[in-house]
């Protein structure tokens, strides 16, 4: 038996800044994870449908437009509504410090702001992956 961690990386909303999301996707691949890359301009509905079909363990959302307080929680809400309670959601992008506690309350478990070393993201996945092993 060989368990692989699967991670969905996507950008909800309308901004097209995908340099960070692509970097994360590629770096996570190099760290040995299976990354489903959905790219820019995705709706929360499409992200959640994809997460469920792909049976991912983590969903990583990137957003630089300022709409994170609306779109990130919506992804978590739809995941839970559709019974995907075990999927862990994290986010990143241009997100002001004072929004982080609100996003965490809404079920986004970690927020990685600009300048975060990729190792921090990998540590987050490694420390939380036990919870999603099934």
């Amino acid at each position, binding site marked *: 038996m060989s368990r692989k961690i699967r991670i969905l990386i996507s950008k909800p909303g309308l901004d097209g*800044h995908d*340099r960070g999301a*692509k*970097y994360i*996707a*590629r*770096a996570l*691949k190099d760290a040995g994870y299976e990354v489903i*890359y959905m*790219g820019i301009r995705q709706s929360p509905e499409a992200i959640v449908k994809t997460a469920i079909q792909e049976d991912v363990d983590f969903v990583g959302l990137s957003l630089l437009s*300022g709409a994170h307080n609306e779109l990130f929680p919506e992804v978590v809400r739809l995941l839970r509504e559709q019974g995907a309670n075990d999927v862990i959601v994290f986010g990143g992008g*241009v997100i*002001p*410090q*004072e929004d982080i506690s609100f996003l965490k309350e809404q079920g986004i478990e970690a927020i990685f*702001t*600009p*300048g975060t*070393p*990729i*190792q921090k993201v990998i540590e987050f996945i490694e420390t939380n992956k036990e919870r999603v092993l099934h």
Partner: protein
Amino acid sequence: MLRFHTQTGGSTLTAQQPDNNIVRVTIQTLAAVLGGTQSLHTNSRDEALGLPTEDSVRIALRTQQIVAYESGVTNTVDPLAGSYFIENLTDKIEEEVSKYLNKIETMGGMVQAIENGYVQKEIQDAAYKYQQEIEKGDRVVVGVNKFTVEQEKPKEILRVNPRLRKVQSEKLMKLRKNRNNRETEEALQALREGARDESVNLMPLILDAAKAYATLGEICNVLRDEFGEYRESIVL
């Protein structure tokens, strides 16, 4: 003359010690002007944190004005002319650019190269390498991987008033009610027909549609219907 526009590099902005970005933008502005740019966009210091505040935007504009009116670099056409080092770098850039252009040409042109994902791949590889260099400390970014501070003071960040969305959609509803909808429809239909004919210049038709109070969304939807939507070839 080669006319070109320059924008300072968004990827060089840091969220850490954001006032340092003013200095980065200044250096890049100076470089662009010394290079002879005809048009310039300067980024604001806080764009790695959120949408820029009014103050930040003003500083970005003032940066251009200081370079233009105070520095003196605009007093002569090409202040760096004759500098051995600059000329050498320019030659190198030219050489590398020619290599790229030739390569793209053999692929069947730029459109083909984009469809193949070649261009995106080159950009992503460069971005990946750049980021890896920062993470390994091979490339110094002041305030990020060197000369950092423990506790940064809170920054003022622009908050978009959520009420604006409502205001805007009300405005839009009003516009749609009050405009001459027949005229709008006709202008959009003309645009649609123009889009079907490759020999037609669409710009005047787009202007007509805008003058008939068609919204940006409506104009784009017509073009989306006719041309479809671009989907990037993802190569990671």
